[in-house]
């Protein structure tokens, strides 16, 4: 059966057709380096990822590189591919992955690892790096989960650590002589380790003790002892994204995205992004406005979002937003802000953007009591929360979403009570301050996720809650959140526990991933696919204990599998933050003064 006939039979064929506005179609010559950006999830998820847009645009500017896209086929398409002995193909030229030079997987979440295996399987490419040769594409990977590459290190030839804009271009330079047949695969890989931020697992051999704890890492070649993450130093002058692919299908974030800064100064102790993307680098308002203009005039998006880890912290956010609103209002183009702080300042800015489109509001207090918010260094006070409720409900909003985490270090039932107190406070303030004309009643939605300790955060030594603990806490919250105006949603602890295994996992997990795949695991991030029992079966079959990775408390002097990576932030800083957490001492936002995390010394060079 041909692709066309398969497309007639699937639920959403537009996921597979390509040809969207601003996509590329280059002539394929013998010299052309064929690069496939592989997102191990469906089109709608992958096309919402800004990194894909950046890399696609960046690489296709190179004359001798053709970057195409591949997503995981949904179940219906996968069945047709297997039944008809077909393979996964690229969207641009409908080429087999075996015909590509480089397959680049992005690692956005741990639960997509089985989808990587599935994509290789659908393309008849050997899973293990050691089983592949010159005839196979080179498998590379990057993204946030590459900061602990070990669980999939046996499958991947080369990892990119940090921001890709500069290192990808440098990698292409190393790849060219290999493509031309002038150097061997090993020579190319070794040369790649010299460009900085590149980890080639085959050159590093972990040694474990009898308990399975890592004791040392032997280097098998002349490669760096630690892989220092790469960043774009001058974010205002470096590569600028000035156009985007305009997706078909109902993608998750169907709007233009303009990055306004990278990094975050807040220092929340649970947050990996806040640590690994340091230091903060802002774009100037002029650059941002030019980016917005160029992207909108080549895409026609009716909405754009100013993205970053904490958009309200941009130095001149208020004037930036009001300038942009004023400029685009007449064309009915809306501005959206991905994350709001709980304070009156944020509410003022939101008031501005809602002139065009009124949307729901979402805030993340993360924890229910001041004590616990201090432990995690979430700089939100009870007063902030109350003031925010007063202003949003006073302005006529009636729905608000609140995000919390359960299972945070030192959490007690008092902290859970705090969650319900905040939700009830919201409904109470609504009655006090709502405009007289308001007929609607209030709805406060509380969502809880389960805390997963992540590498390179102050909580990387902490045990994760057990599954039973998570369920007990959720049940407790169910009995507490009985207010009819409060809706409670919670994230399933089973997936969080598995995420916890891989977040702090080591190389012994590759066989578990493969086993789970063989037993049928895929799309583990999707509730309708995820099967916890398959995973437990896989752990047992491989003789690997998941508790070793999740609920075990680690010593400060334990060597971690991810310690081969240098994220810039020092271990000493993380230890001191962990200590401060346990004694409930907060750390200031580093925009107000340096907190000596080490990133400026290690990555930028010079004084901190």
């Amino acid at each position, binding site marked *: 059966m041909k692709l066309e*006939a398969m497309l007639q039979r699937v639920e959403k*064929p537009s996921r597979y057709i390509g040809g969207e506005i601003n996509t590329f179609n280059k002539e394929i010559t013998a010299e052309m380096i064929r690069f496939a950006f592989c997102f191990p999830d469906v089109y709608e998820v992958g096309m919402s990822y800004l990194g894909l847009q950046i890399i696609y645009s960046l690489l296709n500017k190179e004359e001798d590189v053709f970057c195409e896209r591949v997503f995981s086929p949904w179940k219906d398409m996968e069945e047709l591919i297997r039944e008809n002995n077909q393979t996964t193909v690229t969207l641009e030229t409908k080429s087999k992955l075996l015909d590509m030079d480089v397959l680049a997987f992005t690692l956005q979440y741990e639960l997509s690892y089985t989808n990587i295996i599935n994509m290789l399987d659908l393309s008849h490419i050997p899973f293990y790096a050691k089983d592949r040769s010159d005839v196979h594409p080179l498998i590379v990977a990057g993204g946030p989960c590459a900061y602990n590459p070990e669980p999939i290190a046996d499958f991947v030839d080369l990892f990119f650590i940090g921001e890709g804009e500069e290192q990808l271009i440098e990698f292409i330079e190393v790849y060219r002589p290999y493509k031309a047949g002038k150097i061997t695969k090993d020579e190319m890989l070794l040369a790649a380790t010299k460009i900085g931020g590149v980890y080639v697992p085959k050159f590093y051999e972990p040694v474990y003790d009898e308990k399975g704890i890592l004791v040392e890492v032997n280097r098998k070649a002349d490669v760096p002892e630690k892989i220092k993450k790469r960043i774009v130093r001058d974010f205002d002058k470096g590569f600028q994204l000035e156009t985007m692919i305009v997706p078909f299908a*109902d993608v998750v974030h169907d709007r233009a995205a303009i990055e306004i800064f990278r990094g975050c100064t807040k220092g929340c102790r649970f947050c990996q992004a806040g640590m690994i993307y340091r230091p903060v680098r802002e774009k100037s308002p002029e650059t941002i406005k030019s980016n917005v203009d160029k992207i909108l005039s080549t895409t026609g998006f*009716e909405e754009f979002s100013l993205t970053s880890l904490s958009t309200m912290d941009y130095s001149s956010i208020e004037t930036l937003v009001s300038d942009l609103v004023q400029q685009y209002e007449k064309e009915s*183009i809306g501005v959206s802000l991905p994350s709001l702080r709980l304070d009156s300042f944020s509410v003022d800015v939101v008031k501005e953007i809602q002139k065009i*489109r009124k949307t729901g509001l979402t805030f993340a207090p993360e924890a229910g009591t001041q004590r616990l918010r201090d432990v995690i260094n979430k700089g939100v006070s009870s007063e902030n929360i109350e003031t925010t409720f007063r202003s949003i409900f006073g302005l006529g909003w009636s729905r608000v979403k609140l995000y919390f985490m359960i299972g945070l270090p030192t959490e007690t039932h008092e902290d859970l009570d705090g969650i319900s107190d905040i939700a009830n406070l919201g409904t109470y303030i609504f009655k006090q301050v709502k405009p007289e004309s308001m007929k609607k009643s209030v709805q406060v939605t509380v969502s809880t996720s389960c805390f997963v300790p992540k590498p390179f955060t102050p909580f990387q030594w902490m045990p994760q809650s057990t599954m039973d603990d998570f369920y007990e806490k959720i049940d407790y919250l169910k009995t507490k959140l009985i207010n009819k105006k409060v809706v409670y949603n919670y994230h399933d602890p089973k997936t969080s526990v598995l995420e916890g295994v891989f977040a702090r996992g080591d190389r012994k997990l590759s066989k578990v991933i493969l086993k789970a795949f063989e037993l049928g695991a895929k799309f583990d991030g999707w509730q309708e696919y995820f099967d916890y029992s398959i995973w437990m079966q896989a752990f047992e079959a491989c003789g690997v204990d998941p508790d070793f990775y999740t609920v075990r408390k680690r010593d400060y002097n334990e060597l971690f599998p991810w310690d081969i990576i240098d994220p810039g932030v020092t271990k000493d800083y993380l230890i001191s933050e962990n200590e401060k957490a346990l004694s409930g001492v907060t750390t200031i936002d580093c925009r107000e003064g340096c907190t000596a995390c080490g990133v400026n010394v290690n990555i930028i060079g010079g004084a901190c």
Partner: protein
Amino acid sequence: METLRIVYTKQKYMRYLSHLELMKLFERVFRFQKLPLKFSEGFNPHPKMTFAAPLSVGFSSQAEIMEVQLNERIDLEHVLQMKFPDGIQIIKAKYVDSKKALMASIDFSEYMIRIDFGASVSEYPFEERAESFLNQEAIHYEKKTKKGTMKTVNALELVKSFSVIFKEENELILRATLASNSSMGSLNPELLANLFLNFCKNEKEIEQIEVERINLFMTVDKKLVSLYEL
């Protein structure tokens, strides 16, 4: 206010776009081509566009028709040169007086239906059977109504013309003009092909049915007018 009418193709891979996806695509191309779009009022302003007789996902078309409201006229050359993804091409554009809703004025669609069989069908007299197919008193089939109940429909009442136009080895091409109007009812060409093959007692495996719309007709002054003449 001006009404711009556009005739366009929906072919190649673009035939897999759903109606919603197609509308969004047009809106975005219009936006970055800086058409002076007229927006609806309210909290979620959207451009005023009408697409006549939406095609099923997977059917291609040589000629589709849509209208968009503009605040002022712009050069039609600019409209004709707008670039869409490969498979969508604007073939005609003009300003019209739009008093009657476009959706309601399409009465018939003409289709080519290409059927690929798993084995040769060259021996079978499809041409003769097409005549007797049409000479039946009625061709009943069950259709789900909007309420979810089933009702019996006579397909013949929805067929304006039907013929076999090509037959060779594993391939058969049918041509049919069928009702496609929201009030009169409409008949899916793929369904018609299946009704015909059942009537012919076909037992050969069907690999693929490809449908292409080749024309749309409106009733103007009680006469049927092809969209090419509009």
